[in-house]
């Protein structure tokens, strides 16, 4: 099994398309930080404006942690697309390059091949999310320094002590990776249907955008369907910054996301197992 995973990983990381996500992040983050360096202080002041009338602010809340969090919020809508570039290619890529038959006539069972591909997609997903995290934090701290983090949450605003930030960020990226694994599983599902990678990438992304829009429309009817959309739970990573940590809410979201992941992979596995390679 390990050698199968290694083989799938080698295939994934040998493709140029795999590095589009890494490259894009490497370009976008410095650009975003350049923007923050010009207007970041005003941004913090604007977000905390009402408070500064009554409170004396000592020290700055504009630092590397703040910008890393802002970048995560801004980019997290686009990260699914970068995940789908690879996940959507998992099976469709085999069909495009004409290696489906060779792959499936080898001794390993279809289940093992499917599992190896799913594991390699998960590894790619986490590698991209952690690259985003490491790059944004390292560059942010280097350019803007260390300090307590100012954050806007659903229930108000919060300042998180610097000592807690390392593990909170690590936890948030773990949760973000898990949410992106569901996106990857959707890509794998779409990829198992067709024989061209473009379809799964565009199709999956269209579904995500549709779910995002439906989930955010402020009408009662759409509110009733929100619990059934996986995009409702993909911002679970933000809960890593709640105080105190709401483990029950995080656990519930993680389990629901896990349910969606199993559902998408289950359907994909069923399709893959029944795939007719003789026609």
């Amino acid at each position: 099994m390990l050698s199968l995973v290694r083989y799938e990983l080698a295939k994934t990381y040998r493709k140029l398309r795999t590095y589009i996500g890494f490259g894009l992040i490497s370009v976008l983050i410095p650009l975003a930080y350049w923007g923050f360096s010009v207007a970041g202080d005003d941004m913090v002041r604007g977000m905390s404006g009402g408070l500064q009338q009554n409170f004396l602010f000592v020290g700055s809340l504009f630092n590397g942690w703040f910008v890393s969090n802002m970048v995560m919020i801004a980019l997290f809508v686009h990260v699914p697309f970068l995940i789908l570039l690879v996940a959507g290619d998992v099976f469709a890529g085999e069909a495009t390059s004409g290696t489906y038959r060779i792959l499936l006539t080898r001794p390993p069972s279809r289940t093992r091949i499917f599992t190896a591909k799913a594991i390699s997609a998960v590894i790619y997903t986490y590698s991209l999310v952690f690259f985003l995290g490491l790059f944004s934090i390292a560059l942010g701290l280097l350019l803007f320094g260390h300090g307590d983090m100012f954050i806007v949450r659903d229930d108000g605003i919060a300042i998180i002590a610097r000592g807690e930030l390392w593990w909170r960020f690590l936890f948030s990226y773990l949760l973000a990776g898990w949410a992106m694994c569901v996106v990857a599983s959707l890509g794998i599902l779409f990829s198992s249907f067709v024989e061209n990678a473009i379809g799964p990438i565009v199709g999956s992304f269209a579904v995500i955008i549709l779910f995002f829009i439906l989930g955010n429309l402020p009408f009662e009817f759409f509110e009733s369907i929100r619990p059934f959309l996986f995009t409702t739970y993909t911002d679970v990573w933000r809960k890593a910054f709640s105080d105190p940590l709401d483990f029950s809410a995080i656990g519930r979201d993680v389990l629901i996301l896990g349910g969606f992941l199993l559902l998408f992979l289950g359907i994909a596995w069923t399709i893959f197992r029944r795939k007719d390679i003789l026609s």
Partner: protein
Amino acid sequence: MSRIILPLLISLLMLPAFGHAQQDAGAILDAVKAQYDKVNDYKVRINAVIKMKGLSVPPMDATMYFKKPDKIQVESDGFAMLPRDAVGFHPAMFNKDEYDLVVQGTERVQNIECTKVKLLARSDTLRLQRAMIYVDTKRAIILRMDFDPGTGASATADFSYGLVDNKYFLPSRIDIEMDSPMRWQRPGQKVKPDDNAGDGKARISMKYIGYVVNKGIPDSVFENKAPTSPRRDKK
């Protein structure tokens, strides 16, 4: 005729009493200032805890420097947010030329009979427009202050004192209760039934630890830094 003369007579009799009350208020404030006048400068560590709906902040540490007449500088290794009108409280912020003073009876605060002095700003450029101070006239210290920090909000600060170096009465703790400035709601977010729970008050507690009094603080500590004195920075 007597209907006109009697009220007139009463009014005339009350005029000196009113003037006396004015004088008393001034004298009380002068006594409080004299108590603080023994302090030329000090440095103190502040531990602050803020409890406010819609705002979550960890306990904060800061160092405050004070130098006569009203120089104040607050520094922190990390970040700190401290209530503007109370952090560097000093009676010198109430200049008799800038406020009308009226004694408004007495009230017990911390089990001590205090004289209530009302201060009304004569100019609208002053940050503190109205305040009521509760003065322990025996020790000449302020034990409570009701004030309006602006935007229609009101606040109460309770002062606890320690005798520093057996000479100086300086605040060891200030507890503030104020109308919360946080009216936070994300765009599109619906108000849940329990969102309006609580009394809408913010509670801030500041402990003053380790006073170093009259050891001399160079002016450079206060130079090229944003003024933190709350006197004339009304927004």
